[in-house]
Each structure stands twice: as C-alpha cells, then as structure tokens.
C-alpha cells in the first residue's frame, strides 16, 4: 500500500505568474524525487511544463536537485534564477 506525503508548494516570480497562484498543497507518493515532482507538475499544470526545465527548487529553504527525495511535510519552492540587488 502506498503511503502519502502532504507537501506545500510555493511559486515565485515567472513561475508564480505561470502557475496563476502563490501556493498549492498536494499529496505525493512517498519517496518521490524532485525530478519526479517536476514531471508531475509539468503534467498536471501544462503552463508550467516549459518552466520545469530551468526552474530552481528548494526543499525547506535549501537548494535541492533532481535526485533528492522530497521529505515529509516539505515546503517546496519553485522559482527562476534570482535577481536581487
């Protein structure tokens, strides 16, 4: 039986504009990787598909990469390269 992981997604800048929302909550399978999460988001939200190629992703406010496993109750943020200053 597959257990579920409830996560929070935050979108910023161009990604937020394309997602049409600042945040989402969703259940994902346990042991899902960042790469799988990006594939799922691209499939579920066609507007985001193109963005998933170059998006930066953080898990609990630290930069994360394709092979990372999404931990339980994670706060996941998606955004373009930063442009502060």
């Amino acid at each position, binding site marked *: 039986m597959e257990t579920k992981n409830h996560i929070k997604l935050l979108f910023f800048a161009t990604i937020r504009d394309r997602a049409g929302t600042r945040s989402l909550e969703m259940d994902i399978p346990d042991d899902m990787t960042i790469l799988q999460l990006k594939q799922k988001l691209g499939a579920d939200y066609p507007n985001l598909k193109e963005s998933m190629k170059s998006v930066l992703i*953080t898990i609990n*406010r630290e930069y994360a*990469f394709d092979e990372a496993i999404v931990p339980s109750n994670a706060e996941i*943020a998606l955004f373009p*390269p*930063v*442009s*502060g*200053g």
Partner: protein
Amino acid sequence: MQPSKFPTIYSITESEIDLNDLLARITLPSTGAAAIFTGMVRGVTSRGDAHETEYLEYESYVPMAEAKMKQVADEIREKWPVVEGIALVQRIGKLYPKTPTVLIACTAAHRDTGVFDAARYGIDRLKEIVPIWKKEFGPNGQEWVEGDYIPKPGE
C-alpha cells in the same frame, strides 16, 4: 575578540534603507573602517539593451532570503575573519529610480584588511543565492529580470 561579539544584521524590508543607522549598528569600539555597497534603481540604462525604467517591483521568499543572507555573512566571516560587523539589507516592494534597494556593509579595524573585497563578495553572493526577484516596468511594458546563476548543491 570572539566572533560572537560581532554584530550581523540581515533583513528583507519594505522600509527605506538608512545607511547612518546601519553603519552605527555595525561599528564597535575596535572599528576603524567600513566598506559599504549600495545598489539603486537605474532610471536610464545604457549598457546592453539600452532602456528606461519607470519603477521596479521586488519580491522575495522572505524566510529563505533571510537565511541565505545569514549564510552570505557566514561565508564572509570565514573568508575574512578580520571583518567585525556585517549588514545585508534588501528592500522590496515598488521602488523608483535613484532609490537604494540593497546594502552590504562590512566593518573592520583597518581598511587594508580585505574589507572592500568582503563587501564586493557580499553583493556578488547576494545576487547569486538570495531568493529575490524584480519585475521592471517601463515605457514598453513590464518584464521580469532574470539572473543567470544556478546554485550548486550545498549552496
């Protein structure tokens, strides 16, 4: 002197950046020099794609941004242990030309200690890893400004 006695200020704010106040807060009795960088909204840009700007709108992933600013400060202390006080402040919201939007300040006992390099490093790193974005509004419409740095694992 223990590093713990050295003040570190980092914040995302919607208020005006007050250089006098920030400098005072990172000046210790042992401080003799401060290197400060500020960035402002340019109303007129000539380099590259020349254009005019009416205003910028800044946004930030605030809790992560403050954590990453603290990380930049920690990196500065590791590279330049002589640095005494550090301030990193990013202003967000709607900001017009000539307005200071960001400040990095480093203090030290003397000016020949790397304090200029430390401030330069601070602004470079802020622009690489601190989650802040700006959208530019001008006569030809609006456009997100995108950076080009991809953080590496551990950053």
